[in-house]
């Protein structure tokens, strides 16, 4: 009991509450701007957290973390540009809602979803942490390679009615992710290796510039086509309430609970990231709504399609903390920086944290709760104001988006000017490619997912074969990886069957 009270008092005092609020605001700004990631924000706040007590420092960083994850959905919904990779799946229905004049509702739904996801995963973190941590340890290279495969095939089937186009785009994303240096043997995998060996190309294409280019710049160019219409979205419908009613939320219970589960689990497996989680939950929600009569079909611009990925990506925050606190192994790059704040203060997360600094664990729980509450509060006010961006004429908005996209790509390596300028170029070129692909009705998300999962797939595939002494059958002998292979086969074959049936 004493550690619980200690943790409570460490967080619920004026200074710490103010710090969390500050971190939250900063995080939301950070998340909504392209190129500024949660990891970067947390790393930026590290020096400040050194000067605070352990609990207060963690609280500040957790505020930034939560804010950044939820902030990313704002540009995804309003402009079709995800602020960071966590919000890729939100673009589909979010942007469609904005085009229907329902931006406020989409944002409101996203905020509620973020809150539910955050709190849901916090509850899982508090109750089942040791169990989930043990579960994540089952994921070795073979399992993770197959999980990446699931992510790649699901996105191919989710994002377009046409599977072959999804697969082509996913493969294209893979080729982009494979550019650069081989992670195992340092072979250069770039065209004309002699020429480009010491240029930024040798370290490959960065995810964030690619994301910004493919989604942001291409969308800005598409918007320009409608410059005659004046605004990028039709006049927004005036509504009294922005937030979904309780009844509506209750009707979505299955989607919400499943997304919490998916988000927490995927978040807890180190090195996987939120992008698989959001697409898995989107795919699951699609299945749920297809069977239900009360819910809207996904993809047409409905609240369900915003809620599912937003619940999932906020559930990832709690999930990522599970292995971080219980094993000392962060679930993603943001939690890695969070942990270093503890390590520098001489607290070793993992075994020692629970045995010697239990109060700190409770403090982290409280801080996470508090940051979710603040997220809800600040976004509540924001939801009314953010859609005003849509009343800026295209002639002005598009140049601003273009500059923001380029500076955002630049910012990701903002200290390395040469590499950063290269990133701007990457974003621009991929933006043009993405523009033409969108005109041909090719899905964009599989490219981004290919870039995200390509490295994970290749590394773990090769590592698994190496660990199995050159035996390629290893993927079929382990139960989890076998299950994943079956799952990804189903997600490819099922749409084909459905297509055939429809065609007949």
């Amino acid at each position, binding site marked *: 009991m004493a550690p619980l009270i200690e943790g409570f008092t460490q967080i619920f005092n004026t200074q710490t509450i103010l710090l969390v609020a500050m971190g939250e605001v900063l995080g939301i700004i950070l998340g909504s701007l392209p190129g500024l990631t949660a990891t970067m924000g947390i790393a930026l706040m590290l020096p400040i957290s050194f000067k605070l007590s352990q609990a207060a420092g963690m609280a500040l960083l957790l505020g930034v973390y939560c804010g950044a994850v939820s902030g990313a959905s704002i540009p995804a919904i309003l402009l079709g540009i995800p602020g960071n990779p966590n919000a890729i799946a939100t673009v589909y229905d979010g942007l469609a809602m904005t085009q229907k004049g329902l931006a406020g509702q989409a944002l409101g739904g996203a905020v509620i979803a973020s809150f539910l996801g955050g709190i849901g995963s916090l509850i899982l973190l508090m109750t089942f942490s040791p169990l989930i941590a043990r579960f994540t340890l089952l994921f070795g290279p073979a399992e993770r390679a197959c999980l990446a495969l699931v992510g790649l095939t699901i996105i191919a089937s989710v994002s377009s009615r046409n599977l072959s186009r999804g697969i082509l785009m996913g493969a*294209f994303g893979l*080729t982009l992710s494979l550019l650069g240096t081989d992670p195992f043997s340092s072979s250069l995998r770039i065209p004309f290796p002699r020429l480009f060996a010491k240029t930024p190309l040798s370290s490959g294409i960065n995810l964030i510039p690619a994301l910004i280019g493919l989604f942001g710049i291409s969308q800005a160019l598409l918007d320009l086509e409608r410059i005659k219409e004046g605004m990028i979205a039709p006049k927004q419908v005036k509504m009294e309430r922005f937030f979904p009613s309780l009844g509506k939320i209750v009707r979505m219970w299955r989607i919400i609970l499943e997304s919490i589960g998916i988000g927490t689990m995927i978040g807890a497996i180190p090195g996987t990231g939120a992008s698989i989680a959001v697409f898995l939950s989107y795919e699951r929600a699609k299945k749920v709504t297809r069977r239900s009569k009360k819910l809207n079909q996904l993809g047409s611009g409905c609240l369900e399609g915003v809620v599912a990925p937003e619940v999932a990506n906020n559930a990832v925050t709690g999930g990522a903390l599970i292995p971080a606190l219980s094993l000392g192994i962060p679930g993603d790059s943001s939690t890695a920086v969070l942990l270093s704040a503890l390590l520098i203060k001489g607290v070793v997360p993992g075994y020692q944290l629970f045995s010697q600094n239990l109060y700190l664990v409770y403090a982290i729980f409280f801080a996470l709760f508090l940051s979710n509450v603040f997220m809800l509060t600040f976004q509540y006010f924001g939801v009314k104001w953010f859609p005003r961006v849509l009343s800026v004429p295209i*002639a002005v908005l598009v140049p*601003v988006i273009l500059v923001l996209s380029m500076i955002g790509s630049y910012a990701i390596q903002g200290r390395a000017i040469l590499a950063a300028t290269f990133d701007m170029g990457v974003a621009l070129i991929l933006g043009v490619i993405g523009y033409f692909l969108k005109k041909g009705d090719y899905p964009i998300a599989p490219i981004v997912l290919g870039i995200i999962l390509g490295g994970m797939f290749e590394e773990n595939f090769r590592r698994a074969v190496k660990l199995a002494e050159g035996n390629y059958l290893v993927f079929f002998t382990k139960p989890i990886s076998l299950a994943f292979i079956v799952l990804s086969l189903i997600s490819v074959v099922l749409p084909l069957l459905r297509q055939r049936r429809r065609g007949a």
Partner: protein
Amino acid sequence: MGLSIRRLIALVFIAFSVFYIIFSFSIESRRMIGDEKGWDPGSRAIPVGTGFIMLASSLYIFTKEERKREENKEKIKPETKRVILINLLLSFLYVFLFRRLGFILCTTVFIYTLVYFNRIKNVQIKLLPEYLTGLTAGTIFTLLIYSLGRFITRYLYSWGRSTDISLFTNSNFSAGITFFILAAIFLIAVFLLKRWRKNKNHMLFPIFIATGVTEIIYLVFGQIFMVSLAKGVIFW
């Protein structure tokens, strides 16, 4: 026009996959660290596989994709095409000149030019003087505000150090002060100029947008989030 844009893209990807497969066979294959027995599938395995998947799916799209469902999207008008081209061209110039000219100059010119031309239906050569005047004014206005900001920060720094008031040497604090002073100047300028010219002046509009956007991005990315935006020719 027998080739829809979708099949054209598929064709491009067929060519790309062929090149990619050739390229992936040309990758030098080095041994993984400590892999004496050759158990590692090697650097080429995944690229080659991906290349073939890409080739197969693009071939499938090119041959099998139903041709009847052509996009019935309306054709883009030539003037809209021109607008897109101008935007793209300027974006490429922006990237190329960013390191040389620096963030402040590039961004002001970029935003001003695009906001100016995006709003004009038919571009004529006689608009050039007006455009250039506006461009100069916009650039000077941005530079002025930027320089003032730098001046204040610098002054605060040295003053803070000489008087040992650590608050002034705190970068966040000085950024905040600078922000408020500059925001005030900017708003006063907007207000005054609107007063002077009662009619909705179209020429001033892009100038203010350009200056405002440049300064805000500089403040958020450069000052708060510490991105070292290229300085270029503006050395101070």
